[in-house]
């Protein structure tokens, strides 16, 4: 969901750059005075946006200006890798020590980047820059300061969380637009009045409010109620305190007691039209400015934004992205200049015009480019008005980890019919505390001595090689040795790849799994932990849920896949044109990229407008919420996997063709019925292939990643946080590579054990006599 929030903000960045006024350049005297030849063969790598964004042309314009100013300089604009990868790509560049001069990060990542020493302190550059004037920017810029007050980046765009409302819908129910100081009670009353079953079919189809449910969006309720996430020193969670519990109970009440709330489709699936957009919710929020980008196409009703309703006090949270100069910049001077340009007047105004964030530069935020008097919403000023009450999330080194630690409990509070809010809050608090405590002792841990990893790696490799040489039996004669040599020669390419890409990295992962290491740091900075990571696994409820989800997915998808593939193969085994054509159609989904599979199924399974629920509803069948229901999300992925069952089907068809039809005919003559023939003749002949398909199916099932990564990101709760996904998140989101490596090894051991067991058990039912001689 972070991507979702980034998405809107991301195009924020451009206006300043375009202006790059001479004055500014004059201050950067060193770069300005450089002779042209000095720029030859120099590059400035800028990664702040996606090519498909509307802001890209503005960026290109900046690029041209820069290149014209510094002849020979090559400004490279790079995609962030799509919303799916946009947090990961800068990290890979940092890890890879690749030149990256200007990047855009989310303010919630700032703490982590800062703690890992991943950013360049801009303060010295400001000091040399006479044109720099911090008062040109809104106070949100302070979100990018470290404890000393040094500034590390300039705001691209930001947004406080506000409430969207459907003015027409409220009016139709005799209600006014919310006043600026409206309260929770006002909200509740309005929601009650606007929740209706329009077509009388027993299902509510118009809700008072469509709620958002990620931590950043839920936090305002807690703040409004006088609670907080962490104590002032950032060492202890306050989520278990009564204020927080009461706030969450109120939000939960809207959903499950008052039943005046639902979730907007945008939560899971921002590409589809949400409830609010469809005119079926009076309120939508708390959510940021970026939604105006989607809602600008709404023609059917009038909508606007209001501050969030007050509880005991007014409060809201802030999202922001900022331009930074990463540690791996090779041209910090130029990078600084580019950042100034991006945060400058022209580019900020461009971002304001495009409209998916509030520009950080005051002049742009107050300009007509942002306020857009002729375009909805009418009250853009609300986003500026609420700033005094707005706060960032706590500036922790690893906010993302905390958010993930809480997210599953949070989702169960909001989603589940039955939930003890206080207990869930207690669990959130306990997990957060445990994590914070661990972070504090981290720094005290011993470093892994220099070269340990290399030493361990080379020793293990040598050991494996030695073991292989020692164990491979007596020395044969000359001819056999010549044969052996040619065999080894033919295996060289594979062996190289094996060592470089599998064995070596797997060993390295094993070593890392005994350490604490952030991929943003040098490998030499890893801290020795021993088996702590594995011990943590044993008590980590998320890991247990992840294991359970993966196991249930495998337990369902593997046998069902086998059955379906077998049934299809029996149905389609003929040579006729019809069967051949049908076979092709059944197989084709198996060649579709998982990314596309996930994209298409996301829409097919959409609870509100998806094709599947549409059909189910028409047949009078229940319509589950699929990927949004913790009980249905695993079945949803099973369904997706069944769609790609064509490969297994083909293997079965091939095996059926190879099978001895005489045996079947003999059984037919002996009077065996269809079922008996299948059970006693056909299946035994297929048994080696069944084993084969089961093995492959098992491997694939346990390694499912792309689909949940794109569709649910592990939710709701942890219901689809499959092992590889959790591994990935631990390593790349929480920057806890050691823990991720431990998961990897557990997964590997699990797979090896399962595979071995399956193979062992197979001796009972696999009829090797069924093998055909070549």
């Amino acid at each position: 969901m972070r991507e979702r929030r980034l998405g809107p903000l991301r195009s924020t960045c451009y206006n300043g750059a375009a202006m790059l006024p001479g004055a500014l350049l004059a201050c950067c005297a060193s770069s300005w005075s450089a002779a042209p030849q000095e720029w030859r063969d120099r590059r400035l790598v800028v990664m702040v946006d996606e090519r498909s964004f509307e802001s890209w042309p503005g960026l290109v314009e900046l690029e041209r200006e820069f290149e014209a100013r510094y002849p020979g300089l090559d400004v490279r604009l790079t995609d962030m890798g799509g919303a799916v990868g946009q947090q990961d790509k800068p990290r890979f560049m940092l890890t890879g020590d690749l030149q990256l001069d200007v990047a855009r990060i989310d303010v919630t990542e700032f703490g982590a980047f800062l703690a890992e020493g991943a950013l360049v302190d801009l303060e010295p550059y400001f000091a040399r820059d006479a044109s720099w004037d911090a008062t040109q920017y809104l106070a949100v810029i302070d979100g990018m300061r470290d404890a000393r007050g040094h500034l590390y980046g300039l705001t691209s765009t930001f947004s406080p969380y506000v409430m969207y409302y459907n003015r027409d819908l409220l009016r139709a129910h005799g209600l006014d637009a919310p006043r600026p100081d409206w309260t929770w009670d006002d909200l509740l009353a309005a929601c009650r009045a606007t929740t209706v079953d329009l077509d009388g079919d027993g299902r509510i189809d118009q809700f008072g409010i469509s709620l958002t449910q990620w931590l950043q969006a839920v936090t305002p309720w807690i703040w409004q109620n006088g609670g907080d996430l962490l104590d002032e020193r950032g060492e202890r969670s306050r989520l278990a305190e009564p204020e927080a519990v009461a706030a969450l109970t109120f939000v939960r009440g809207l959903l499950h007691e008052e039943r005046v709330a639902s979730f907007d489709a945008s939560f899971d699936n921002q590409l589809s039209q949400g409830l609010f957009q469809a005119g079926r919710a009076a309120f939508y929020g708390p959510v940021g400015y970026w939604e105006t980008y989607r809602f600008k196409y709404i023609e059917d009703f009038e909508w606007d934004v209001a501050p969030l309703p007050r509880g005991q006090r007014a409060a809201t949270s802030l999202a922001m992205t900022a331009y930074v100069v990463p540690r791996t910049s090779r041209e910090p001077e130029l990078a600084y200049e580019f950042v100034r340009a991006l945060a400058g007047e022209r580019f900020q105004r461009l971002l304001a015009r495009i409209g998916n964030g509030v520009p950080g530069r005051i002049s742009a935020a107050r300009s007509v480019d942002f306020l857009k008097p002729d375009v909805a919403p009418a009250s853009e000023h609300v986003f500026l008005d609420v700033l005094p009450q707005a706060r960032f999330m706590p500036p922790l080194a690893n906010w993302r980890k905390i958010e993930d630690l809480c997210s599953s409990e949070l989702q169960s509070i909001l989603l589940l019919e039955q939930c003890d809010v206080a207990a869930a809050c207690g669990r959130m608090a306990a997990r957060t505390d445990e994590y914070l405590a661990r972070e504090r002792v981290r720094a005290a841990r011993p470093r892994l001595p220099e070269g340990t990893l290399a030493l361990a790696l080379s020793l293990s490799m040598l050991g494996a090689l030695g073991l292989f040489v020692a164990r491979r039996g007596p020395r044969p004669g000359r001819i056999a040795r010549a044969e052996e040599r040619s065999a080894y020669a033919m295996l060289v390419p594979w062996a190289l790849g094996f060592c470089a890409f599998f064995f070596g990295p797997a060993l390295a992962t094993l070593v890392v799994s005994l350490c604490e290491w952030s991929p943003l740091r040098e490998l030499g900075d890893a801290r020795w932990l021993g088996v702590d990571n594995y011990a943590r696994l044993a008590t980590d409820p998320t890991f247990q849920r992840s294991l359970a989800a993966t196991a249930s997915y495998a337990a369902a998808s593997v046998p069902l896949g086998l059955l379906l593939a077998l049934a299809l193969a029996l149905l389609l085994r003929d040579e006729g044109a019809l069967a051949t054509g049908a076979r092709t159609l059944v197989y084709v989904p198996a060649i579709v990229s998982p990314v596309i599979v996930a994209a298409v199924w996301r829409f097919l399974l959409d609870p509100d407008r998806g094709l599947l629920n549409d059909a189910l509803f028409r047949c009078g069948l229940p319509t589950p919420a699929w990927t949004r229901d913790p009980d249905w999300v695993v079945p949803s992925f099973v369904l997706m996997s069944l769609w790609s069952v064509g490969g297994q089907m083909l293997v079965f068809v091939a095996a059926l063709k190879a099978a001895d039809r005489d045996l079947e005919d003999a059984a037919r003559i002996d009077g065996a019925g269809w079922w008996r023939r299948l059970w006693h003749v056909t299946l035994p002949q297929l048994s080696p292939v069944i084993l084969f398909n089961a093995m492959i199916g098992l491997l694939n099932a346990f390694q499912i990643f792309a689909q949940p990564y794109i569709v649910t990101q592990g939710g709701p709760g942890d219901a689809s946080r499959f092992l590889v996904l959790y591994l990935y998140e631990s390593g790349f989101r929480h920057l806890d590579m050691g823990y991720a490596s431990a998961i990897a090894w557990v997964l590997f051991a699990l797979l090896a054990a399962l595979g071995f067991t399956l193979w062992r058990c197979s001796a009972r039912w696999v009829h090797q006599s069924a093998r055909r001689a070549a």
Partner: protein
Amino acid sequence: MSARVLRWVALVVCASLFALPLVYMLSVSLHREGTGLGGSLADLAHDAHPENYGVALEKMGDFPRLLANTVVVTVLSIAGQLLTCSLAGYAFARIEFRGRDALFVAVLATMMLPEQVSAIPRFLVFRSLGMVDTFAPLVLPAVLGGAPFFIFLFRQYFLTLPAELTEAARIDGCGHLRIWWSIALPLARPMLVTVGIFTFLAAWNDFWSPLVYLFSPERSTLSLALASFNRTYDTAVEHMMAASAVVLAPCLIVYFVAQKLFLRGVQVAASKH
């Protein structure tokens, strides 16, 4: 008779169910922006928007460049994969040597290793080789036999060749390398095609490696460009589906062209274990 009709109906229903999501994808891709999801095929009769495809291509960036990059990566991967895996498969199937079983177990064990397990160390390897932001990290794993399953497939295939062919060739003066090249490979055409198609699909659809390793826009690939469509507010579903269809099309074409040999390879894989 009724059994045949029943079977026929079942067949048609199955095929249509499996085709449905792709038809849906095409249908959405042809709708007017904002109407794709709720829209039906019938709308397309009077209100089709093939220009979505043009828009999608344009949003993806320098399409010819993307296509060329993807083709280069794919072709190199296929060539490398076929050579390395068939070499290793031949050695495992046709040469007696000490430690063969142990090495083969190592090959199979790699299949159990999730890609993500080795991602970071692998990244460090490529970084230290100075290969980041080149095609090497995308191609080298394939060239160096990165897919153990294919080694397994080739081994199975070569096991089906009569031993006398190899013996005859050895007596005729061939070393194993020559036998592999002149005898085994030409006879393994179905398996070459099968593995070739699998590699093609893997390389063509690979999103993870380009994401991790490619940074320069001039080296970007189609799937990466497609990924940048995902979950972005600026992109209409209709354009995203159009882009998906564009990226998918070559896979379908390659599959249909090579289908016959591909199925023969699958046949071998299925009938010999």
